[in-house]
């Protein structure tokens, strides 16, 4: 999977690059809009990450040019502005998703994965961690073959954990993804829901999948300890 990152802020570009490389993506980067557009037109990228405020050519114009040239590559926009009008303008110019700075990298990763999955048809809809299975189409969850009934919030929480399997997620990151923005700041609600989720998917079974990382947050993985 090859991704083009167009971001003029070097330090922002750096941690995105490092993080995506660790996830196994190949990353090219450009520091201004014009270079970004040229690279995007020449190379067959699977996805573009574009900052809006770029020198030479703005992110919005870059996407518009790209779409004019009949490129359908998925684009995630990074923006320091969050006005509704901006969002609408971006979607109209052809962006597929947007993230407001300061975003969490885990969230960027989940969005990227979602867009890449949309592009490829025959990807399996089932996520697996150890003996836990999640069907993303039917929202059915099984562990060790036993069907587990989850509320929709519990499901969203589990799905987010599993999509970011192996990554440590802070309570704020979880709030940002699973709840809407009105819940921003209510981090204690995450603890309550994680406890509920554990009671359903971990406690009746031998091996614990969800782990608490002290003073950070939660993670899910098939710990081989």
């Amino acid at each position, binding site marked *: 999977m090859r991704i083009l990152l167009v971001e003029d*802020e070097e*330090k*922002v570009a750096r*941690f*995105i690059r*490092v*993080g995506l490389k*660790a996830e196994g993506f190949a990353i090219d980067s450009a520091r201004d809009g014009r270079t970004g557009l040229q690279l995007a037109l020449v190379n067959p990228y699977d996805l573009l990450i574009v900052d809006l405020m770029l020198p030479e050519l703005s992110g919005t114009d870059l996407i518009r040019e790209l779409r004019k040239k009949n490129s359908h590559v998925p684009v995630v926009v990074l923006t*320091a*502005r*969050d*006005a*509704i*009008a901006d969002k609408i303008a971006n979607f109209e110019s052809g962006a597929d998703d947007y993230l407001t*700075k*300061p*975003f*969490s*990298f*885990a969230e960027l990763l989940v969005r990227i994965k979602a867009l890449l999955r949309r592009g490829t048809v025959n990807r399996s809809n089932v996520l697996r961690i150890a003996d836990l299975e999640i069907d993303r189409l039917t929202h059915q969850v099984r562990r060790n073959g036993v069907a587990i009934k989850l509320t929709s*919030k519990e499901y969203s929480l589990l799905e987010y954990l599993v999509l970011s399997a*192996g*990554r*440590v997620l*802070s309570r*704020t*990151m979880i709030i940002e993804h699973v*709840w*809407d*923005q*009105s*819940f*921003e*700041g*209510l*981090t*204690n*609600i995450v603890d*309550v*829901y994680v406890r*509920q989720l554990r009671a359903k998917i971990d406690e009746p079974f031998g091996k614990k999948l969800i782990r608490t*990382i*002290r*003073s*950070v*947050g939660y993670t899910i993985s098939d710990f081989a300890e």
Partner: protein
Amino acid sequence: MNTRSIRFNLISRFAALLLLVTVTFAGFTYWSVRRYVVDVVGGSMLHRAEQIGRTLLRGGPADESYIANEIETRYAPELNDRFIRITRADGSVLYCSRNPADRSFTPANVPYPKAKTLKSELREESPSDEAKMLIAAVPYSSDQGGGYLVEAGTSLAGANRVMEALLWTLAAGLFSLLVLTVIGGWMLMNRALSPVHNITVAAQDITLRDLRRRLPVPQTGDEIANLCVVLNKMIARLQESFDNVSRFTADASHELRTPLTIIRGELEEMIQRSDLNEQIRSALGSLLEEVERLVAIVERLFALSRLDAGEAQIERVKFSLSELAETTLEQMSLLAEEKSISLQFKTKDPVQVEGDRTRLKQIIVNLLDNAIKYTPDGGAVELSVWSRNGTAFLEVKDTGPGIPESALPHVFERFYRADEVHSRDVEGAGLGLAIVRSIASAHGGDVSVSSEVDSGCRITVRLPRAK
């Protein structure tokens, strides 16, 4: 009636002053007219008494019947309602007129002067319950010796009737003058104060949110117009400083975004590394938590400054507030369950509002979160939605410790906390209620709080109801 209004004050004072002046004037008029009447009547009585003395008593001891006859012929006192009496020095009566035709007095009852009369004088007598009499007494000594006292008098009833009529006229004039003054003053004050009233109404409409508006300046060039111009300049300065503050907040939070993105991203990536020892990971985790807290504060400040600037394009969608409240309450029910708090929802009819669903949901979340946070375990939190007269009400009531009265006026201020003990709460940062107020007023509503220490607190949001 507002007894402290300029209108009331001016009119009542003016009326009092006018009353004082006119009553004095009327009193003076009454007094001088009465004096004049008494002078005229008295003068004529004196003249008559002197005349009688001069003409009838000159020729020595007079014959009673002659004098009676002369007086009847010349003065006809009974027909003219006059009183005439002549007394000798030894006190015997030489002549006394009979009852007058109008029976205004009885001559026989008219008392004698108390002291010996040495010179002409006027006195008033009340021989009966009837009207007073004015009597002139003139001592007369005839050439042949022998002194007489000639008295000529008349009832004052006629004069009193005139005076009474005058009194009534004065009183009626005074009363109508007073009424006219109050009515006229009222109308004049209305005319003079109506621009002030207009200014008050216009100024009430100018809130922090629309400082761009100005007071209408009347085209009169008078003091009121000057006042409007000065007030408008003041509003302009207010707007400028207010704009500066919101622009600063917007710019500052915007400038903070990029560094925060970098710190957040780097920390997040570092925490993922598996070769970290526990101590470092937990230090990084705590740093990340603080950065996320900063991010939340910046987001909230930014949202507030946008709401203030009125540029937050509030979406106007019609939806059911009761339904939104109920679903939000359900989403937060686990938080209440954690603390064994009973979370109740009360509504009668579905209440429709028009506005930004996400932001209004934020109001509900913030209020419920606050209530749950401050209510001790086992307490109760109640959310109710109702509507009355075109206004939608949303109220959250809790059984927490309440808010001290001194803190009540400040709870909607930014970064204000009623309770210093909780100041390290990551969540609120003291902006929750400020956001509630900004969102409510951006929707054309408002929010109020009432609380008594130890009996919980009640926060009520009012929003215009959708038509």
